[in-house]
């Protein structure tokens, strides 16, 4: 009969490790903070691009290539953020489709 006994715990390893991991998470950045910081950074890029265009169009103080580069920076970082957002939504919808 001993052979049929399931040894070890049935709980997933993450639950057992939650104590120290949970404490650790409090000290580190959690996901929503990271995401918020990323969005803030991308917003900064967008504002920089806007400022560069204004400088070129109104004061003529910046050269056009700097404005274009600022625009491209904003464009690529925004696309990267959209990619992250798509992945998150995909995962969420996958969970919502789960059979209960």
């Amino acid at each position, binding site marked *: 009969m001993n052979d049929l006994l399931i040894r070890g715990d049935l709980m997933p390893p993450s639950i057992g490790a939650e104590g120290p991991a949970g404490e650790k998470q409090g000290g580190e950045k959690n996901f929503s903070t990271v995401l918020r910081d990323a969005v803030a950074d991308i917003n900064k890029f967008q504002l920089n691009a806007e400022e560069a265009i204004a400088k070129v169009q109104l004061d003529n103080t910046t050269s056009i290539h700097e404005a274009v580069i600022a625009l*491209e920076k904003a464009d690529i970082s925004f696309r990267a953020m959209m990619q992250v957002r798509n992945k998150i939504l995909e995962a969420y919808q996958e969970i919502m489709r789960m059979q209960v």
Partner: protein
Amino acid sequence: MDFLTSFKICSSGLATQRARMEVAASNLANVETTRTPEGGPYRKKTVVLSSEPVPDGFNTAFKDAVKMVKIAAIVEEKNVKMAHDPSHPDADAKGFVAKPDINPVLEMTEMIAAGRSYEACVTAFDATKSMALKTLEMGR
């Protein structure tokens, strides 16, 4: 973000090549200028470039491998060209006029070189951008 290093380098290249173009245009425009606020004829100007490290860019282990470019100095030519033209208002007692020592053909080639280098920087920028966008398509 790591592709920003390449953008910075391209940006410095664009700025310096544009400056070269401006200096070449200035030399061409002043090819016959005999009066300047400093006195004497216009002096031919030459751009001197130097490389400088990229601020907080690239891989830290190979930080010194990539360099940006910047204008080190704009040097003025000392020589002037003496042309015999007694009817010119700026002619000296012997009838010679001090004119800038500028060869328009050389200035044109300088302009073409600057334009081509600018185009090369734009191409490098575009390549970097398409690389970054290709990365986003990964796993789709």
